[in-house]
């Protein structure tokens, strides 16, 4: 049962953020984050369970044996129906999926950033010339004397 929920969730996540342009899909990357969020909160867990059941039902009603065998377009059609019928579930799932995906070191590195902690490394910036403010200064004071 748990395994089935996990597999379905992975397929849903891959539909939300499919593998593309050298980026892996969210099924591999964000799954643990979404499951951890559900494990940390009974409300989130219940929302997730209900939502996934609805996805499964909708996928079967669409003529298949579930979401996994469908192609990306058909999966998207199923999920768009669920987005309408279960807005709270869907909204929090997308939010959580994006959180998990875009905080994962693999994705952060793929975006061209250093995936480690920001501190103490920070960012090195090239020294700047003082900005040219001559035009702004030339206008003279723009405040009201009071």
């Amino acid at each position, binding site marked *: 049962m748990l395994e089935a929920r996990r597999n379905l969730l992975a397929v849903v996540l891959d*539909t*939300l*953020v*499919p593998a*593309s*342009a050298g*980026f892996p899909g969210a099924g591999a990357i964000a799954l643990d984050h979404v499951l951890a969020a559900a494990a940390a909160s009974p409300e989130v867990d219940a929302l997730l369970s209900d939502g996934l059941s609805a996805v499964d039902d909708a996928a079967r009603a669409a003529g298949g044996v579930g979401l996994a065998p469908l192609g*990306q*377009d058909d999966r*998207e059609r199923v*999920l768009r129906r669920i987005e309408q019928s279960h807005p709270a579930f869907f909204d929090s799932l*997308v*939010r959580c*999926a*994006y*959180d998990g*995906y*875009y*905080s994962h*070191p693999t*994705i*952060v590195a793929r*975006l061209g*950033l250093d*995936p*480690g*902690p*920001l*501190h*103490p*490394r*920070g*960012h*090195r*910036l090239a020294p*700047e010339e*003082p*900005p040219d*403010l001559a*035009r*702004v*200064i030339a*206008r*003279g*004071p*723009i*405040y*009201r*004397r*009071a």
Partner: protein
Amino acid sequence: MAADDRTDVLVIGAGASGAAVTWRLAGAGVRVVCLEQGDWVDPRAYPHWRADWELHRHTDWSAEPNVRRLPQDYPVNDTGSSISPLMYNAVGGSTIHWSAHFPRFRPSDFRVRSLDGVADDWPIDYATLEPFFDLNDRMMGVAGITGDPAYPPKSARQTPPIPLDTLGATMARGFDRLGWHWWPSDSAILTRDYDGRRACINCGPCDLGCPTGAKASTDVTYWPKALALGARLVTRARVREITLGPDGLAGGALYFDREGRLHEQKAHTVVIAANGVGTPRLLLNSRSARFPDGLANRSGLVGRNLMFHPYAMVRGLFDERLHGLRGPLGCSIISQEFYETDLSRGFVRGYSFQVARGLSPIASATGGSVGDRVPWGREHRRHYDTRFDRTLTVAVIGEDLPEPENRVDIDPTLTDGHGIPAPRVSYTLSENSRRMLDHGIARAREALEAAGAREVAVNPLLRAGGWHLMGTARMGRDPATSVIDPEGRCHDVPNLYIVDGSTMVTCAAVNPTSTIQAVALYVADGIVRRRS
């Protein structure tokens, strides 16, 4: 109940204003005790030390107490407000989270009634506060450049300005093309080592705290000095109410310690520095036969005239990468082109543009302050890649006018972890503010397009934008129309002072903390003068 020794001055709240006042009083040899409901923040606890730092912005490091829900937080019922109040409860107060954008109010901001016929004049002016602005700048450490024609000449800034970098320079070009004012932000963020603190390493998210100590949160500026001067700071000490003696003077405060035990701290003088929501809450919870409607509230104005700065967010999308993840998040440049009143624009008073940095990886997906989530599905990657590190947000920060219906009062049922009644916030954006923001949105769009943006997205009013909490115990000469006098003393209780954001008569169109702290130092100076 344990009773502590009577002290000269009791300060309630260890944030921006409480720290400044405590330091000034301790330096004058006054015995000061400060009670703070939060704790010290260990710089190693900031999310910057973790690879998943960004996740913490919406959980344990959220600026919203209702999201964060730490034991030292109190809940705020904000369902009747179009803006959510943000704050932090710790040594350093909300400066732990702040972006340290550090503009001053302008001279005209203290003369709103005389110049524009709205709201009220302050009973003090820019010239009176100027030495305190300067003193506060030295204590906090300000990066910037003097010579801004939007202000009277200022004293030298402590360090050079924060870097414009690609993003700031791009926007400056837009303002230049239109012939509009812009200037590198005055920021309380060190760009060189100063006063024993280290320079900024440009890591980015100042809103999650600053592990370097370059950002001037008062736990690293005023507090070490105040403690060295002998001030006593009691943390995890939550004040329930201010006590009143038979003489009608404040006698001290009742507070819960970290074990939940009730104490009384007696004092000759009490100074409240609990911020624009915490201060009216405390006064309204301090009821007695003499003050059945809340302490120092004969005017009925405690909690009223709440001002936020309403913010509209206007985000431009550019073709090139802007490197917007490096450098202090909240500041790069500011424009005050539309600051002073021009009635032909359809509203009174004005606004500033603040140019923030870019969107971090998660915020790029969720839309950040504009909230336009990148679509999911097949199109996701293309949309995301078009947006990531190619956006620049111009914040329109408008001057709110004081209105009595916008207020903090006590929620009939909600309480904090100690059972103390919690505040309720009611706030509606006024017609004047709406017109002002709409004007700002249109002008920001123009500026972004002039800078090269090919698309512009707008959030007409940022809900999670209640950074500035002001006006709820306003200063004035007339006890019927104000809570404190021009010296910061409550009209109704002469040994009770207020120094935080609630003192503000009007809120100007810039971030308030530089001015809040200058007022706090000015009030402290008066307390010292009157004692000698």
